[in-house]
């Protein structure tokens, strides 16, 4: 009798140590790419902190902060091209903004404005997915379509550790494996699914090892090491593009903020754990040390970047807040390809009301 036994965790793939020193193979990239990624990380953090403030001031609604996950997101998006398909969850703004999703739209999303769910037409970015794990299947379908149509593009699904408990996760991995679909399953294991720690979400030692059961490759990478994430994602994308099939990537990272602005992590999370990640494992700090050691970065560049990031976030806030107000009657226009008579009547009803009844609402 041979028993398949669960193994211990494989080591996380790393390029940089926590102090920014090189412990692996640095990806072969031009200098400006290195710097670009850093700039994107700082901009993202600035955006995230600002968004939290805006929510507290009541200027945007519920928001899911990503601070702490910048390396995982920017490293992975850096390996994607514009015509690759992207299926994000609600916590992907760092990666999406780096990919070309305008910051003001990201803010509009949290303002509850329908425009916030629309990516610019030159991107293949699906609207933010709220339902945990659903988008994995869509990514499999999109990757499959690329394969069937002979396109070079691949599809990438982004999701969290909690998502791996849903049936959709397992169905997606199996389906992708059976049809050798060019899709990358990018899991940000940020330690928590709202109040539930990974250790309670699953008894397997890693997310990555779940790939083995489906006959696909799985990798566990230090999600706070942007170069390691890039390298792993790059390899997965190359494999998918060249017909080698799907890959599951587990980026081990940490959600520094609350689950969303409606959440209070002090109810369930140990302060010491949070402190350790914040003070010793910050992905931006680590990468900055690396750049400094390479002579690519210094204090002067840093303060200029911070100032510039602050200004572009200010601009985005201004653009979002001066965006035309959402038109309630437009909700009828996108239910079907053409509006059925009954719905047209309902649209008229609502329009009559919003014009005549200003402020008279419930």
């Amino acid at each position, binding site marked *: 009798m041979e028993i398949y036994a669960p193994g211990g965790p494989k080591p996380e793939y790393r390029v940089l140590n926590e102090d920014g020193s090189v412990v692996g193979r640095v990806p072969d990239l031009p200098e400006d790419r290195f710097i670009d990624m850093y700039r994107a990380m700082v901009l993202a953090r600035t955006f995230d902190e600002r968004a939290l403030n805006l929510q507290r001031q009541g200027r945007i609604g519920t928001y899911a902060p990503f601070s702490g996950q910048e390396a995982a997101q920017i490293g992975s998006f850096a390996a994607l091209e514009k015509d690759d398909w992207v299926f994000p969850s609600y916590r992907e703004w760092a990666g999406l903004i780096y990919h070309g999703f305008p910051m003001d739209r990201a803010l509009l999303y949290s303002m509850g404005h329908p425009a916030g769910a629309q990516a610019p037409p030159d991107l293949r970015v699906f609207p933010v997915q709220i339902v945990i794990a659903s988008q994995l299947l869509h990514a499999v379908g999109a990757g499959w379509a690329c394969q069937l149509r002979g396109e070079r593009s691949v599809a990438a699904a982004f999701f969290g550790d909690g998502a791996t*408990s849903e049936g959709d996760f397992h169905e997606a991995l199996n389906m992708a494996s059976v049809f050798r679909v060019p899709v990358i399953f990018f899991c940000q294991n940020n330690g928590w699914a709202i109040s539930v720690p990974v250790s309670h979400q699953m008894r397997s030692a890693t997310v990555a090892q779940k790939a083995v059961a489906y006959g696909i490759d799985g990798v566990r990478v230090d999600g706070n090491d942007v170069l390691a994430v890039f390298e792993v994602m790059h390899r997965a994308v190359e494999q998918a593009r060249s017909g080698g099939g799907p890959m599951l990537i587990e980026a081990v990272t940490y959600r520094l903020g609350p689950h969303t602005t409606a959440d209070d992590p002090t109810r369930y999370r140990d302060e010491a754990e949070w402190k350790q990640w914040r003070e010793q494992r910050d992905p931006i700090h680590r990468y900055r040390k690396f750049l400094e050691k390479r002579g690519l970065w210094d204090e002067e560049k840093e303060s200029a970047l911070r100032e510039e990031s602050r200004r572009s976030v200010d601009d985005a806030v201004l653009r979002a807040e001066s965006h035309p107000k959402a038109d309630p009657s437009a909700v009828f226009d996108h239910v079907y390809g053409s509006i059925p008579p009954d719905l047209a009547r309902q649209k008229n009803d609502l329009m009559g009301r919003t014009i005549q009844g200003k402020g008279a609402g419930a």
Partner: protein
Amino acid sequence: MRQLTMIQAVQEAMRMALESDERVMVLGEDVGRNGGVFRATEGLQARFGEHRVVDTPLAESAIVGTAIGLAVAGMRPIAEIQFLGFIYEAMEQIAGQAARVRFRSSGQYTVPMVIRAPFGGGVRTPELHSDSLEALFVHTPGVKVVMPSNPRDAKGLLLAAVRDPDPVLYLEPLKLYRAFRADVPEDWYEVPIGQAGVVVEGDDVTLIGWGPTVPVAVKAAEAARERWGYSCEVIDLRTLAPMDTAALVASVEKTGRAVVVHEAVQTGGVGAEVAARIAEGAFLSLEAPVARVTGYDTPYPPPAVEDAWLPGVDRVVEAVRRTVTF
């Protein structure tokens, strides 16, 4: 009497159920350590332990599916779906399984379980957190569907649901969780499943609502009285399946007119079922067509435009006027 909010009443009912019967357990996402994202299960895990108040993995189909097995094998599970919009994940387990176990086994096996889920609009939630999906389950024989509109009913209906021998979907209008406090008796009491309540008595027209639209109907009744002197009766359906047809018919036989108000989309909604029952049971008393004031036939819209979409007091008042002056 002491006053509680609806969320406190829900919490208290679960606490009493857990105390009174050791087969009762609570399971769902974030219900344990965190006490539920709305605090419905606040303090329960600390009090009853991790085996009776269980943080499950993030898997709705698994929560409901295992709750079926638990119930069949002697437990009394109260499963929480974090938001009703995520119940689609568990649809097969509810409609294809829980609802049919008794039927399939000719009564050999039964599923005494409760599924709680918050829902409802007007609170600026992200997508799929607000949708009213009660019609899906009213259309599923074998499942009972209840929906409280106030703290007192919230406790009494939940206790009745826990004692009920069949699967009960207990839907919680999240806008009302902390909207107001009301008298809630401290001891165990049950609001019978299958009984509507008369919230306001009146003679000219019957307003029928459930959950979040009950306060809307009450306000509309007040407005119609002030403006035109109409006397509106307001009925809180409370149980959507099995529906209290007798209460609807009795009221409309008195008033001759009816306006149904629900947040769910109009087409195929429970309002249509209510209208049909009134037409069947009180046809000769009707002086006007039964009016429906509902959500429009679109997916629940994003927060920036939801107020215009929701059936508000002004739309109900207008329907009352139209019905009375028909």
